[in-house]
Structures are given as C-alpha cells and as structure tokens.
C-alpha cells in the first residue's frame, strides 16, 4: 500500500495540472447536470472542450488513435489522476453519455473494423448522440424477454415493436437497439444488437413527461423500420452477450464518488453558511450528524474506487467489490440531495431554481433525477440480486411451476 504517486504518475499529475492551469478558461460554463436533467444537442463550447480533451488524452484516452482517440495504454491510476485534478479545479471532465460510455467500449470489443472506423470518432467528439434501445413496456428488469422483432427481408431487417425509457431518443442521431431476430431460438439466444439512425423512416418518438418536469426519456415506436443486416454488432443472435458487456459500463457511469463529492462539498458550505435563528446549521447536531454520516459514505466510495483501480491495475477481477457501486452510489446521491433540501427548510421546495446559484436551485431536480437513477440502469432490487447471486453465489429465484 502506497498512496503517493510513483515517479511516472507524479509526472503525469504535473502534466494534468499544467493543462488545467493553461486551459481552464476554455471550459464550458454550462455543466453536465443541466444536460442530464434536460437533454439537448451539445453546445459548441462543450464540443470544443471535448475535442481538446480527446486530443490531449484526458477523455476517451484509451480509444485507439486510428479511431480518433488518444491511444493510451489502460492505466486506471492515470484516469483517476485526471478525475482528481479536474475535480479539484472544478473543471468539467470528458463527456459521459450512452454513446461514449457504453456504445464505444462495446463497439471496440465487438464491432467490425468498418463499424469502428465509421462510428467511434464522431461519437467521442460529441458530434453524434446515441440512445439505447433496451427496455420495453413488457421487458424491464427481465430485459431478455423483449419482443421488438427484426424480420429478415432480403439483406435487411424490418424492425417492428416498441421501446420505452429511451433516454435522449428525442435528440439522438443514432440508436443501439436490442431486437429479437431469431424468433425460434431460446430467449437469451434470439437477440441481436443493431445500430441505426434515428431518422430512419418508421421511427416515431414520443417524449415521456417525467416528474422533473422535463422529458429526459421517451417511448420509441418502430413500424417497418428497414435496417441493413450489416448493422448488427457482434453477430446475429449474440445481442444478449453484447448488451451485458454494455451494462457493465453503464453501471460504472451512473455512480461515481466525484458526483457524490460535488454534492457533499456544496452541502458542507451550505451548512456552514446558512443560519436559522442566528445559528449556523452545522451547529445543530441533527444536521452535523447527518452530514458526517454522509461524508463517511462519500469518503468510503472514493477509497473503494481506489481499491478497485488498484485491483484492475494488477489484473485482478474485482468481483463482488465491483458489483456494489451502482446501488450504493445512487442511494448515496439521493440521501445527499435530501439533506440539502431539508437544510433549506421551506426554501427547499424551490423548483427550477435561479440559474446563477446553480445547484442550490436544482436540488429538487437532482433528487428526482437521482431517484430515477436508483431505478434506471438495473433497479436497486436487480442490483441486489446481482450482488447476492453473482457476488455471494446465492441460488437464483426458481422458475414458477407451469400451470
């Protein structure tokens, strides 16, 4: 155990610090959580920042050069150093969205050379926005029971069916979609992972109004949507395995310690600044107690991520340790939001708040959004099944008896 940087990492940290000092003025002012709450195409300054980060190797750094990336060797500690230094300087890190965080790693692992050449570069530069066509009205936690089908028609599939909870579909250029192409195969073997443009004829997108007041996801209807069979990623009928690969990436990006730390820092300032009857909230043991409970959890998340990074650095499989982050992290964020809202008292019900006080005006938005993340990307209950069954080796739920 050695928590200091070794020589190579000391040099790297200094490089990142130089970059931060030099380039901070070029960072976009509008932060990612406003995009998360209300999806829209990336503004020019966001894309320019992303291009700069990709070019310098501070975003998508492991994406090979021939696909527009930086081509760095996998080094979890360097990724961590980037995150730490950007966080310390309050700079936005590289974009994280379903295209960059989920589709690109999947394509790198499973795609053909042509697919990689075509799709990766515009995606990591923020020019192409992707949505994920997984869940259906009848296939949520039991995703493999999905019914959207692709019928062979010459060299194409004709896709019919419906997806739901499709985040960003109303602004997306492309979709990666799970479609049942082998109707006679067993449930998990009949699915293909297919990519196609969202402007293909036959796609009807209906934004779903959400509790946050903003449509962040959609219902997507497919009627005879014609897609070349060549758009399958990872082979026909292999979609379940390909999708599981992607879900691993999704769970990492839904919860991480920096997201929680940012909330915690603002809460600490809030509790030290805000007074009630002339007394600072932090002097109220009820509030300081809640604050320090959550601070310990945020600290534990950071350390846990360091532990995971060290395991991966050594080539060890994290197993159980890797399975707990989504559930713990999402619950933690919701608890942090709740503390902030409670600290504001009546002011805490402010909705769609004043932009220049940023987070202080959007805690209600954040808390609803974070509740959504407890459900999305595999519900808390599904996460617990995964921890119990794959992490602890407990038996699976038996199938109900026929009849």
């Amino acid at each position, binding site marked *: *155990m*050695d*928590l*200091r*940087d*070794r020589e190579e*990492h000391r040099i790297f940290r200094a490089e990142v610090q130089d970059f931060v000092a030099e380039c901070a003025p070029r960072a976009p002012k509008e932060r990612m959580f406003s995009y998360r709450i209300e999806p829209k195409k990336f503004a020019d300054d966001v894309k320019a920042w992303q291009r700069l980060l990709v070019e310098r190797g501070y975003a998508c750094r492991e994406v090979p050069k021939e696909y527009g990336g930086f081509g760095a060797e996998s080094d979890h*500690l360097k990724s*961590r150093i980037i995150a730490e230094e950007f966080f310390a300087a309050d700079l936005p890190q590289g974009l994280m969205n379903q295209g960059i965080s989920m589709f690109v790693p999947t394509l790198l692992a499973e795609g053909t050379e042509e697919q990689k050449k075509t799709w990766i570069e515009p995606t990591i530069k923020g020019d192409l926005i992707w949505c994920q066509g997984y869940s259906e009205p009848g296939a949520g936690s039991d995703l493999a029971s999905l019914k959207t089908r692709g019928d062979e028609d010459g060299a194409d599939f004709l896709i019919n069916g419906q997806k739901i909870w499709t985040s960003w579909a109303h602004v997306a250029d492309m979709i990666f979609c799970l479609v049942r192409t082998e109707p006679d195969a067993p449930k998990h073997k009949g699915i293909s992972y297919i990519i196609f443009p969202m402007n293909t004829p036959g796609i009807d997108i209906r934004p779903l109004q959400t509790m946050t007041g903003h449509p962040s996801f959609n219902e997507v209807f497919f009627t005879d949507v014609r897609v070349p069979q060549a758009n399958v990623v990872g082979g026909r009928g292999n979609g379940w395995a390909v999708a599981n690969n992607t879900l691993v990436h999704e769970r990492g990006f839904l919860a991480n310690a920096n997201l929680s730390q940012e909330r915690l820092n603002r809460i*600490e300032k809030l509790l*030290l600044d805000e007074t009630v009857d002339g007394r*600072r909230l*932090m*002097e109220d*043991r009820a509030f*300081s*107690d809640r*604050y*320090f*409970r959550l*601070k*310990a*959890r945020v*600290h*534990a*998340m*950071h*350390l*846990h991520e*360091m*532990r995971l*990074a*060290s*395991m991966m*650095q*050594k080539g060890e499989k994290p197993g*159980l*340790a890797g*399975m*707990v982050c989504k*559930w*713990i992290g999402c619950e933690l964020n919701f608890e942090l939001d709740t503390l902030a809202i409670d600290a504001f008292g009546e002011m805490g019900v402010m909705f769609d708040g004043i932009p220049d006080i940023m987070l202080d005006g959007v805690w209600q938005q954040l808390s609803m959004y974070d509740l959504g993340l407890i459900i999305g990307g595999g519900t808390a*209950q599904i*996460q*617990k*099944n995964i*921890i*119990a*069954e794959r*992490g*602890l*080796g*407990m*038996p*699976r*739920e*038996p199938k109900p008896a026929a009849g």
Partner: protein
Amino acid sequence: MDFSLSDEQVMIQDSFRGLLSRDVSLDLIRDVVAAGTACDANLWSALTELGMPGLLITEDFGGAGLGLLEATVAAEELARAMAPVPFVGSAVLAPLALAHGENDELKSAWLPRLAAGEVRLGAAITEAASGARKGTGVTADGGALSGQARFVLDGGGAAAFLVGDQSGGLHLVEAGAVGLESTLFPTIDGTRSVIDIQLEKTPAQLVAGGNSGVRQRLIDAGRIILAAETLGAGAEMLRRAVDYAGERKQFERVIGSFQAVKHMCAEMAAELELCRGLVWHAAYAFDHLPDEVTEAAAMTKSHVDDVGRFVARTATEVHGGMGFTDLMGLHYWFKRIGFNRAALGTPDRLRGEMAMRLLTG
C-alpha cells in the same frame, strides 16, 4: 499509488487465518467465556509464536516492528475467528504507549516481555476516548495516582495497567501496587476482559506527559483496530448467514433463493465492501499521514460501527430463531460488534468530535 495489501501483508493475513481456523472452535470460545478468563492459554502461546503480542513492538525489543496496517489485518482475522485472546489493550494500546512514550526504563522493562508473550497489559484510556462520566477520573500527584479508572481493556490477568489521568498524562501502574483495587466489569463480550480499577495514592510511573500527543495516538489506533475487528466480525456473520440461507429449506426451497433473504445478504455485503477502504486508509494514515489520522479514525469507526450494527442484526435475522439461540453461537460475533461500537467512542460521540473540529477549525 497502490491501494492494496502487499504480499507480506497477505502472508500475515493467511498465517493468522490458517492458525485461527485450525485452533479456534465454537467449543473453545464457549469454554473460555464460561471460565471468565477471556484468554485461552494454548491459543495465546500459538499466537505468540506467530508474533501477535509483539506485532507493533520494534525489533530491538524483540517484536516484529510492523505498522498499524499489519495490526488491522491481524485484528480483522482475530475477530473473524472470535479468538479469545487479549489484543486491542495488550498488543496495541499498551505497547504503542510505551514505545511512543518518554520513559526508556519502562520500554526495556516491559516491551521485551510483552513481545515474548510473558506478560499482558491492560489499558485505561476510556475517559480520553469517550469522555469523563460522573464520579470517574484519575488525578496524578507526584508519583501517585488516585481515583477511578473505568473500562480497563484487557484488564483481567494483566501484570500492569496503562492509565490516563485527567490532564492527559499516561502512567503505568503495576497490578499489585499499593492502594489499587480492581473489580471485574462484566460485559456482553466474554471473549475479552474488562475491569474497573480504584486507585488511592497508588505509585505509578510516567509513560508520557500531558502535552506529548501520545494519548491521541492511542485513541486513534484503538479506534482503527476496533473498526477492523468489527469489519472481520461482520464479514464472518455475513458468511454464516449466506451459508445458513443456502441450507435451510422452507416451502420446499432453500431460503437463500427468496429475494427477501437474498437482499438482506446483498445489503450486508455491499455495506461491508465499502468499509474495507476506510479501515485500510485509516491504518495507512496512522502509519504515514499523521495530519489525517484523527479524522480518518473517527470517520472510519463511526461508519463501521453503524454498518456493524446493521450486519449484526441482519445476519441474526437471516438465521431466524436459530440466530437467537446459543446453538450456532452467532451471538458471540453480535456481542463483539456491540462491544466495539461502545468502546473508545460511540458513533454519536465521534461525529460530534468531527463537527467540533470543523466548527472550531
């Protein structure tokens, strides 16, 4: 940066786990608790051969010269096995006090015998760690101590006691000293011994003065060790719960296939996983980051105590009625976790300390 155990630390873990899984049985724990000695002589000898009493004692005094991180690795295994031997008081607090103290005579007199497992020491630092209660407290006058020291960890069978006074000084008092009376303080955890001692102008030797900072080092170390123990005990309770749920059948299914039960186990596992980084970091901070350790120790113990309480009750519940009986002995781990939660600072007190430091800068 490397946040993992070294090969040597893994070796320590393996050797403790190996010995303890061979030598500690539920019957042994029951016998020691029934006898009220809180120490099994054979196990003590075996662990002495492994170097347990001298883990933190430097090599020139016959110890292993290791750090607190290694001690937490050992503590976790000792609690996992629920080994009935003194540790936190005799092998951590007392040797650290002597080693960090200013009294060279005491070092040469006691450290080699401690490392060799020939004597054990108790530690009375409760007032400093948990606050002074009405009627307790020790005052030092010249070379003599008077007053009551409560909650002397590993006090039973100890040859001498490390005693904190009201002005922050630390003293060593021999068990047979004039004016000393000890009373057994029965606790829920029969695998370790606690006594109260009453002192009346009892001769003592100064280990470290009030301004030395040694006392805070001891409090930090003790809190980290107890958190490591709770992590080990909690992990063992979870293991037993998962095993039991995989065997016990109801409604023609093992109960571990019911989501209600699975989710209890998943929650325990997730919460315990997150504790490991806290314990490692706090111990590492004790060894290498002196500015951070007091906060890290308080944060770690407060959080791990809460997780421990959750795991202790949940693992018991997974066992159904069997968890409440003595048949499976699960309660020994439950009680250790409860003991640790109360000792050297409850979670509430620790969070209060952190708030005070934040507010007063």
